[in-house]
């Protein structure tokens, strides 16, 4: 019936591709992988054996979307890792098994665009690596602007410069090379679409400059994969079961619910996809998502537990 649930995969290769970035090759254990669309990601579940917490992180697929034999992801070790990237870097080796969600896409290219301009910052290069085969296949005009610090990131920069030739510009901040974003934006023909994946500061600055230049907001796309950020601890009560759970300052509400075996559908774990929406019965919410509309946020009746938290000490969910 063409229904797919979690997919068990085996790690078949681990490669250090930059000082802080490891690349993992994943192959399906009992079936063929599905092709995916450029910009898609999977949620990787790691750990979760007895007495061990489970971690779930969303990672962009960076392999060729048509390749059903393997998926590849790249993981940057986060200095303030809440567990996931540290686990991937320290615990995962060739032969290990992981569970992944089917690919989902919140960052697909807009194929009506006359030209595509891609801004990658650090490990933000990953979704664009899955764009490239399709951009080339469609013979669409594009340029890639890749910003990184070679002492930490900068994976694949040499290969990209070689294979993409003048479609790719590399900017290594550790060599003092900077991208003049305003200059790049000002040179583009009408109908160009812009894509940003990288740290929040890069997303903010490209969006601000684009806005100043009068580039329509609908032509600017970005991937928010910051994920959950820490906050004050609080207690959540589930009104239907009466269960009470403590949410620690560095766990998200969604992670706490999952830790108590309460399954909540989710795709992005970053407040974008809308799948994990929960009804709120009592308590103030600190909304941190970009999915709910302002009126929905103000109603106080719904929240996205992947990133949002209680504004006070206590929250009651209608689940």
């Amino acid at each position, binding site marked *: 019936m*063409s229904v797919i649930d979690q997919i068990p995969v085996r790690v078949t290769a681990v490669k250090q591709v930059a000082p802080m970035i490891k690349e993992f090759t994943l192959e399906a254990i009992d079936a063929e992988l*599905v092709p*995916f669309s450029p910009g898609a990601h999977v949620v990787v579940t790691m750990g979760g054996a007895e007495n061990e917490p489970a971690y779930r992180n969303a990672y962009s697929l960076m392999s060729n979307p048509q390749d059903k034999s393997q998926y590849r992801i790249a993981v940057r070790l986060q200095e303030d890792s809440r567990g996931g990237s540290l686990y991937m870097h320290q615990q995962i080796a060739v032969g290990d098994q992981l569970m992944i969600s089917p*690919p*989902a896409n919140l960052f697909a290219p807009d*194929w009506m665009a006359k030209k595509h301009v891609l801004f990658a910052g650090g490990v933000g290069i990953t979704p664009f690596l899955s764009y490239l085969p399709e951009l080339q296949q469609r013979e669409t005009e594009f340029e890639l602007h890749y910003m990184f610090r070679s002492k930490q990131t900068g994976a694949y920069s040499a290969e990209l410069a070689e294979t993409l030739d003048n479609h790719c510009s590399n900017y290594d901040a550790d060599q003092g090379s900077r991208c003049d974003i305003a200059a790049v934006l000002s040179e583009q023909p009408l109908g160009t679409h812009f894509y940003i994946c990288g740290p929040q500061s890069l997303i903010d600055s490209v969006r601000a400059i684009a806005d100043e230049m009068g580039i329509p907001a609908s032509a600017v796309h970005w991937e928010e994969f910051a994920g959950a950020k820490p906050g004050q601890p609080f207690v959540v009560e589930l009104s239907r079961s009466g269960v009470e759970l403590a949410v620690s300052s560095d766990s998200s509400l969604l992670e706490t619910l999952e830790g108590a075996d309460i399954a909540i559908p989710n795709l992005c774990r970053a407040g974008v996809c809308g799948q994990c929406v929960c009804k709120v019965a009592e308590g103030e919410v600190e909304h941190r998502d970009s999915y709910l509309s302002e009126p929905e946020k103000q109603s106080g009746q719904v929240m996205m537990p992947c990133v949002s938290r209680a504004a006070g000490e206590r929250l009651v969910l209608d689940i």
Partner: protein
Amino acid sequence: MRVAPKEIQSFRDDFTYSNSAEAIERFPFPFAEDEYRYSVNMEPHLPKGGEGSAYEHFLDIDEHYLSEMAERELVLKEMPHRCLAMPHMDLACWDMVERIMVSLSEDYPDYFSLIRDGDHWSWENKLLNIKDQFTFGDSSSLPMPPLDYIGRQMQGDFALLDQREGDLFLDAGIITCPADWSLAFDAGMSFKEWHGPVPMAHGEGIFERALKYLIAIPVGKPVRRLNWTLTVNARMDTSPEKYHEWGHERTSVTPENVGEKVYLRVELQVLDRMPRSNAMMFSIRTYLLSLEDLVTNKEWAVRMHRAMKTLPEPLINYKGLTRFHGTVVDYLAQFDPVN
């Protein structure tokens, strides 16, 4: 499949279309409660109803397969633009080719076979005597464009919706049996634009919620809903392009012929995320059942009467039932013990 395709019957002129007892039994009756209520009524497209049910497989092939494919040929011969795909939808069309060929060959191996050797594919449709080899993804390797090619081999209409700007756009489709809507007119429209004529729902935020829900549907989690209307005569092609041929038939319903002339038209709509293109495949599988066949099921007869009786005026008008709705309710009343 328990119901084997039968010889070709017509959906026009002499209207020889008929349902067997098995086809009546498996008809996807849409009314779950007595009072008609407006709802989006989505559910996961999982098998239900067991062997022989219209929901047994991802795509449903039934006894009308040959008839519907012959009807589609007739429509496309006269109006080729009832199948169209904008240039950026080529990959989505190939996604659809893959989804249909894989599903049909797995679910109906007696009728369809697919052998894949990398991008080199061999497809056989024994019902239509089609046997082709082609290169997956290379539109020049098929005898006709991919959407046209596969659309002529699957019952029901198909639309491919491009997802961008947080919206869905109707940028490709093969639509030969629509319930009074036109692909040529709706082509390129956004979700809210093509739903513009639907009454009652715009004020209630139904479309905003539905759109958010659809945009988030992931690969491998298709959803379905049923939609319905009433059609006079077993006519598949009730398109605006052909209104001059069928519109006037609404005045031909009388208390004497209503049972055989009026059909409950049910659309089993499935929305399925396409993996390579991120487009949505929207399939609209149409079933027609005459009221006289419908009332052979006592439960359906009662429910149909009550649903028709409580149908709000704006919906009666929107669905084009104004001329004969009263006659239908009067006819059905005799099967409802409450009356």
